[in-house]
């Protein structure tokens, strides 16, 4: 039995010679370097976005995925890193990105039309290398189509991004990358924040115009994030060694709030209140 095992082992090693150095040796994982996601609550929850790994962010519409994406892009471009956004549904809004503080000249925006284009574009960008953050936005693509993406595509992406300083961020409606993702974060929409505007009347009195539609102003919204899987230690730059462990749900939730920047449709707030 042992002889057979040794023969089999040597056969495998011989077959993989030149491609894999030591196929039976344990591959020591490197230290996971994390960087800020741009949202302190998410950083506290996840320990930041891991470099050289796949981060999967998923949730329904209006759950804050784009806000998190913009925050991450802002944080990376502020560090003079080049970023790439592979926009599967061509839904990116440069105005809101600029209002969020994203340095657009550091952003490569690839506007795709379908899943195939998105995956091929991701492949090309990962091969090219050099980006601080590559975001693959599949949020607007029907989940049934994304579900058909073979799992080996995610594995390939994960392998391609390993040992590089690139953060690969995947945004979807449902989790598809599964165990290929080093960090899985589910977002859910919270309550929207509306403010009532007291407006001075002609008599100089403050009046409540909340019964009128223009007496309300959207201020932002909250979103709840939940870590569903993480290969890092919670709360900071982790040093991971060992197998995958799903994060317990209870202690892995956090809420963050977003704000509206009324400039992003080129409208100052004064003009909006007219």
């Amino acid at each position, binding site marked *: 039995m042992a002889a057979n095992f040794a023969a089999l082992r040597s056969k495998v090693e011989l077959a993989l010679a030149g491609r894999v150095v030591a196929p039976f040796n344990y591959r020591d994982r490197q230290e996971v370097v994390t960087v800020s996601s741009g949202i302190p609550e998410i950083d506290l929850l996840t320990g930041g976005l891991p470099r050289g790994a796949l981060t999967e962010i998923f949730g329904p519409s209006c759950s804050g995925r784009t*806000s998190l994406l913009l925050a991450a892009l802002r944080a990376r471009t502020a560090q003079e890193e080049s970023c790439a956004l592979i926009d599967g549904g061509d839904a*990116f809004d440069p*105005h809101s990105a600029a209002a969020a503080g994203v340095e657009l000249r*550091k952003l490569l925006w690839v506007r795709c039309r379908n899943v195939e284009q998105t995956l091929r574009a991701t492949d*090309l960008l990962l091969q090219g290398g050099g980006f601080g953050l590559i975001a693959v936005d599949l949020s607007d693509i029907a989940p049934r189509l994304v579900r058909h993406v073979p799992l080996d595509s995610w594995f390939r992406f994960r392998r391609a991004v390993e040992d590089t300083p690139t953060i690969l961020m995947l945004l979807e409606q449902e989790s598809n990358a599964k165990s290929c993702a080093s960090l899985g974060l589910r977002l859910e929409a919270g309550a*929207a924040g509306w403010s009532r505007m007291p407006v001075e009347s002609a008599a100089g009195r403050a009046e409540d115009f909340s019964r009128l539609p223009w007496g309300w102003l959207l201020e932002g919204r909250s979103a709840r994030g939940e870590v569903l899987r993480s290969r890092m230690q919670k709360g900071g730059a982790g040093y991971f060694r060992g197998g995958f462990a799903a994060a317990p749900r209870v202690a892995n939730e956090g809420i963050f709030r977003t704000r509206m*920047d009324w400039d992003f449709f080129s409208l100052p707030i004064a003009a909006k209140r007219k």
Partner: protein
Amino acid sequence: MRPCIRKNMAFAAIHVANFMVQAVLRAEAELSGKPVALVDGTAPLINVVAANDAAWRAGIQLGMAQTQAQLCAVEIRRRSRAQEQAAHAALLELGWSMSPRVEDHVQDTILTDLAGLHSLFGAEENIAREFARRAAAMHLRVHVAVSANLEVAVHAARGFAGITVIPQGEEARYLSGLPVQALAPSAEALLTLQRWGIRTCAALAALPVLELSERLGQEGVRLQELARGAHARALVLAEPAEILQEEMELDDAVEDLEPLAFVLGRLLDQVCARLAARALSAAAIRVRFDLGDAFEKEESVRGKNVVAAGVGVETAAAKAYEKVLHLPVPMRDSKMLLKLLRLQLQADPPAGAIVKITLGADPARPRTTQHGLFVPNSPDPEKLELTVARLAKLVGGANIGSPELTDTHRPGEFRMNRFFPSMNETKARGRASKKSASGGDGEAAAVVRRPATGCRIFRPRLAARVELREGRPVKIFFRGLYGRVVTASGPWRISGDWWRRDAWQQEEWDLEIAFDGGDAGGTASGSASGSADVHVNVQVNMQVIAAVQDAQVHMRAGLYCVYYDATCRSWFVRGMYD
């Protein structure tokens, strides 16, 4: 050109023997070592005008008819003046690669001033060897002669094979064995000298000057000075060309791009070698195809193509195709340039058979970068350009780039720019150093504010049906779903460009919508309620509805930006706050 006179200087003459043949061999390296004969003329008078040694040995003779030459088992090529020009330009580049003072003497010979080269290359013989080595890298075999006298160097280079270094004062002795023809006398003078029995330079140099002047005039005096190595003149400097160009005429017209890649690669190799010789890189690559008749492709396609090229001058016959590959950073890697060129040509191929290729490079100083420990990672510009070109082929050139907001209030307006991340690197280094000095990687500074609410845009805009009550939206129908408006904020009236045909006027609403589910098909074209304030829009895109049916389960509630377009009196959903 301007004269340059220096004293106690050494000059090198670089001569390409059998220039016409070498010019062809330079472009077709696979012919090296084979017997090659060049023919020229117009049919039926096409004769051999040049051949290499192997061809002479095979029986080729000068002036032989092409039909006769074909019987001698040699490779027959037409003489190419374009390749001769390119070879001449390469010869000049060879001179400039080592010395800034170069004279463009004749097509197959150049002169260079060796002043200052001794400290770099050592003795004059070493300098001459370096010239020969660099010429070989350019696929040229040259004879090099070094002398203090310009004319002596030229004659020695033409007369002696390999490397010849003539010490000062021994010019006459070195030239003595050369035939008089090496001095390029006029036919009349040569005939006279031959009648006198003067065959060599030594014999000519021995003639008395006065008598020679009486019989042959000033030409005789000049020839004798040349034979003695005593004719002095100044070096006439040549100016480097602004565009490096290589040309190749194809024997057979080529319609497909794939077979052309080999030729383009060779031309790029030559251009890059010339750039390297001058320590330069290419800022842009210009390719021009002279097109023959399009055998299989439609004339209409050709017309479209010629217009689409749109970057250069078209001939009257519209049989030329031009393309310019602008590079974000100067490059000199011929393989990388070939890949980029192929991608660009594949995106917009020429609509005709290619008969001649002209490839030029705009020279520029090479990119210099200083990397630092704290400079953030950035894509390599050369690699990035290739990646972007591949992505452009995949998604279309207009769908990739860096967005830039335009100077307008019109919602959703932006333009796509070329992505070029390599900013002011010194500035970046400074910023990064400051951030690292202030502690950590400066992450804290990036997260002081609450994150902004992201917005996703629907492209194209989604038509919607909105029910108003007391001027406020209460119900909305889009994407096959009915939604109840929970909270509405608006209307925020915006307008602009009233002086233009595409003036815009909108009333914007921010709506919090709770979806109750809906009937995707049945109510899509239904009528609105009877309220007088109701605006009806029945432009529901059935395709959109079908595509989003999967996503309906995820649309339970949401924040949307909806607007009423007063110019077309319709409601639309601009985007979603996510």
